[in-house]
């Protein structure tokens, strides 16, 4: 009996190994197969003791070879490990790592989103003789073991909303949050609340969450991982992956295939290794803090020793976070942090209070901000000389000082004084009015008020009659080069609206790329907006030297980058300007579509962050004009992905300091940026005929198999779903922007 069970187990393990290694031939695997077969043959002939001995031998061989195979794992094998149905899931972790838990947020298939699992758990710690239960909120994606209703861990927008709700609950209850990320990606559906917008909201709220968050990454699939992954301590399973896109997606983009075609498996495996998505790569790049070593060839639900290790790691990480923000911590911090090889078992025997007070919360937020601010600092090319760097540093400091003095220090007193005076004035005015009312009644004049004759002539007649009555409109300051071609252009809405063909010089010149019949906006160059929306000669570009680089040494990418830089004349896809609009100063960050589709990488994120810092220090409003963005640059993988939480944190810092953050979408804006720093703005507008969404039609068809209706991502659809606040005609963008600054900007225009 026992032998049969053990043999079955061994063949199961062999099957698992074969699954992991896919179609790759491996001498060790064939060896294992032959050994198993051999054993099967010899079992019949041998005596019981002999059988037991042989079985033991076989098991030892298995263990030995598994260890050897573990060293030969490639990135694609790691991906297969993570996707295997036997991979440990959140429910296993809850059972084995935490001492007791209650699942909130739904039950199996009766949850609002079965792929998001939320539980309230506690961990028992000993302090001397007493036993404490330390409560924790556990949030994570759940794949289940073959449970189809969980959608393989692909969380829908309302699942992320539920996660956010419980994060806020944890904040209210002042308990830490442990998040377990195991998702291939978020479900790309646009129904309310919208995949991108919800992830952006999650990131924004997590950026200011006043309780520590510890995240453990098993399978980190881009945006879906970020939705619950912004944390103070980041741990990663040794056989996990964390990447901006799945290897299949990257291969599809590289091969440039259309829907329905297949990509060669070798290309997929090659992309997987190029994307540097394994735990070791992430640790070396500084995107995770610690790796949790799994048993060989990946952890499955029966590796109980691993859960013990996981428990200790998680406790240790939480302790470290709490200790870094509390007061008395010297010895405990030393015990925990100084030696990296210190066994985490010490963590369980120590006692650290898991609670936060106001001051500690401030420190926590600041440390979280600094942590993300420092990430990916070397991933872009900064071609400034050390002298220039020093100069800009000093400039930044001077502005910080000035801003602090004027707005925080003196400004606070000024505001307090003006508030008090305002109140007094209000009171006095009422009293004075009431008292002088009878007086006014006596002295009130009857009849219409008489106006000065000279003044009335000035108001009604032309001031310079020789120029005539009509305002001269010289047209646009910048005219698209397409207006120089002598050709006709067909409007895409011709069949529906019956638009006649337009003449290119008219269309791209006077009409600014707008069909005169139906109003369809043809895509227009970003320079059009820079010169026609902002005041003439008011554009001053800063941080020009920050260049997009190739941090992962992705093969073939430097050429593509060079080509893009030459074609557009710019060094990255983000341009930051200080401009004026009708005399009011504003900081503008433009994501331009001609540069690699407007994809965001480390350089663009850095420029954004610096522009936000500049706007915060100088107290200017901030406009993010998105000419077009295709998401995060795949060739930069994690360096680009980490910009999502990083820039969102800077945005939050800017908004909380009182800044006005406006976003204007144009042409196509998809994926990463929309799901983070653009989608978190409360004031998002779009130019007509633009497309805004989380994933393009091809990706949606591939991942979900749903055929989406045409114009699914149209700006008007986004408006109907509540993702954006308004749609502007391109020709009125300047007027609308001025209006937005006036009405949304508030009394002081720039800042509250």
């Amino acid at each position: 009996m026992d032998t049969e069970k053990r043999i079955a187990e061994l063949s199961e393990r062999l099957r698992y190994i074969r699954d992991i290694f896919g179609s790759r031939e491996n001498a060790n695997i064939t060896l294992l197969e032959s050994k198993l077969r051999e054993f099967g043959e010899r079992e019949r002939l041998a005596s019981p003791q002999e059988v037991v001995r042989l079985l033991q031998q076989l098991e030892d061989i298995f263990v030995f070879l598994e260890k050897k195979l573990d060293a030969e794992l490639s990135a694609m094998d790691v991906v297969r490990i993570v996707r295997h149905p036997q991979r440990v899931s959140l429910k296993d972790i809850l059972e084995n790592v935490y001492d007791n838990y209650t699942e909130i947020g739904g039950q199996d298939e009766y949850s609002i989103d079965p792929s998001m699992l939320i539980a309230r758990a506690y961990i028992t710690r000993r302090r001397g003789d007493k036993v404490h239960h330390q409560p924790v909120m556990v949030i994570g994606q759940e794949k289940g073991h073959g449970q189809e209703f969980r959608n393989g861990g692909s969380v829908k927008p309302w699942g992320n909303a539920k996660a956010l709700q419980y994060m806020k609950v944890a904040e209210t209850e002042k308990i830490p949050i442990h998040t377990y990320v195991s998702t291939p990606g978020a479900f790309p559906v646009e129904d309310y609340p919208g995949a991108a917008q919800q992830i952006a909201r999650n990131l924004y709220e997590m950026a200011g969450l006043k309780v520590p968050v510890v995240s453990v990454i098993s399978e980190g699939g881009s945006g879906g991982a970020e939705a619950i992954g912004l944390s103070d301590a980041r741990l990663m399973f040794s056989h996990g992956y964390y990447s901006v896109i799945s290897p299949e997606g990257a291969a599809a983009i590289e091969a440039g295939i259309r829907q329905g075609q297949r990509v060669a498996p070798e290309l997929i495996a090659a992309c997987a290794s190029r994307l540097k998505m394994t735990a070791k790569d992430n640790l070396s790049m500084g995107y995770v803090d610690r790796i949790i070593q799994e048993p060989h060839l990946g952890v499955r639900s029966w590796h109980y020793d691993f859960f013990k290790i996981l428990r200790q790691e998680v406790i240790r990480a939480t302790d470290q976070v709490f200790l870094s923000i509390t007061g008395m911590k010297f010895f405990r911090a030393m015990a925990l942090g100084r030696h990296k090889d210190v066994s985490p078992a010490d963590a369980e025997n120590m006692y650290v209070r898991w609670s936060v007070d106001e001051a500690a919360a401030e420190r926590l937020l600041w440390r979280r901000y600094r942590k993300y601010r420092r990430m990916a600092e070397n991933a872009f090319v900064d071609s400034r000389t050390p002298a220039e760097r020093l100069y800009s540093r000093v400039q930044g400091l001077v502005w910080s000082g000035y801003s602090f003095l004027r707005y925080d220090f003196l400004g606070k007193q000024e505001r307090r004084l003006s508030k008090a005076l305002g109140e007094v004035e209000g009171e006095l005015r009422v009293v004075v009015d009431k008292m002088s009312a009878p007086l006014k009644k006596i002295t009130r004049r009857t009849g219409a008020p008489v106006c000065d004759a000279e003044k009335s002539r000035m108001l009604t007649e032309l001031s310079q009659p020789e120029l005539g009555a009509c305002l001269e409109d010289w047209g646009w300051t910048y005219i698209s080069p397409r207006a120089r071609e002598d050709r006709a252009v067909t409007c895409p809405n011709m069949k529906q609206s019956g638009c006649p063909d337009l003449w290119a010089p008219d269309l791209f010149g006077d009409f600014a790329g707008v069909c005169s019949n139906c109003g369809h906006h043809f895509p227009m160059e970003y320079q059009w907006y820079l010169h026609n929306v902002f005041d003439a000669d008011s554009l001053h570009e800063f941080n020009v030297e920050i260049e997009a680089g190739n941090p992962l040494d992705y093969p073939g990418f430097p050429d593509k980058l060079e080509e893009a830089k030459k074609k557009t004349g710019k060094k990255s896809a983000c341009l930051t300007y200080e401009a004026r609009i009708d005399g009011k100063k504003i900081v503008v960050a433009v994501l331009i579509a001609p540069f690699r589709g407007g994809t965001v990488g480390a350089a663009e994120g850095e420029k954004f962050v610096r522009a936000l810092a500049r706007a915060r220090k100088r107290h200017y409003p901030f406009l993010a004009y998105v000419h077009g963005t295709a998401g995060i640059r795949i060739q930069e993988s994690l360096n680009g992905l980490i910009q999502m939480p990083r820039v969102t944190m800077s945005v939050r810092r800017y908004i909380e300091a009182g800044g006005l953050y406006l976003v204007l979408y144009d042409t196509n804006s998809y994926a990463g940026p929309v799901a983070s720093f653009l989608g978190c703005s409360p004031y998002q507008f779009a130019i007509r005929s633009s497309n805004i969404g989380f994933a393009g039609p091809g990706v949606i068809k591939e991942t979900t198999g749903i055929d989406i209706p045409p114009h699914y991502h149209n700006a008007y659809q986004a408006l109907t779903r509540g993702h954006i606040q308004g749609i502007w005609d391109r020709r009125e963008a300047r007027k609308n922007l001025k209006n937005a600054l006036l009405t949304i900007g508030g009394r002081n225009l720039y800042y509250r």
Partner: protein
Amino acid sequence: MIDVKSVLEEIKAAPYEEIVITAPHTGIVSFEVKKTGVRAVAPSGAYLEKPGTLLASITRERNVKPLHATVSGEVAIIHLERGGTFVDAGTPLLVLRHYLTKDEVVAAILKRVLHLFCAPERAKYYFIPSVDIKIKSGGCRSVTVRPGMELFIVSRMKREKPLAYEGPEGIIYAVYFQHDDNVEAGQPLIGVCPGSQTGLIQDVVNRVHSDWEEHA
């Protein structure tokens, strides 16, 4: 009686519909399809987003406009001599032979055989409420009409007046107008089948549905 069968024979003799594809506007034509007999497919996809086969393209003022097939069929005649030359609007370029499907054959037969009650003027037409309910619940075959009965409401410029049905008594077999659609004068509104011919027509329709081979 014999009418129905002879109509069917007529259609069987030429089981296709010839569609002449003309130039939508002036320009220089260039043909994508070079020989006759090529199959063309209609727009496809869940939302008809994949256009039909590219048959030709017309260039006017350096603007190339593609001409796609709107129905499936076979290219019968191509005026290749016009290829590369300047043509006026409305010049015939291709003749597409659309082989009729079963439903189209049935519709054609019904159009020829049933008594059609035509619209006297250009207006919007609605059924009277009682008839409308019957049609919505039981399908259009559940209504019997008699000459002189009030059947329609004519709505023109928001002014409505009733319209009586004239013609043989029978059941409504087909409805040729939509709610809120303008119907031109002289266009058929309904097709009525006299009681005696119902069986025969149903017979023929069934025959078409079972026997008609659609051109693959």
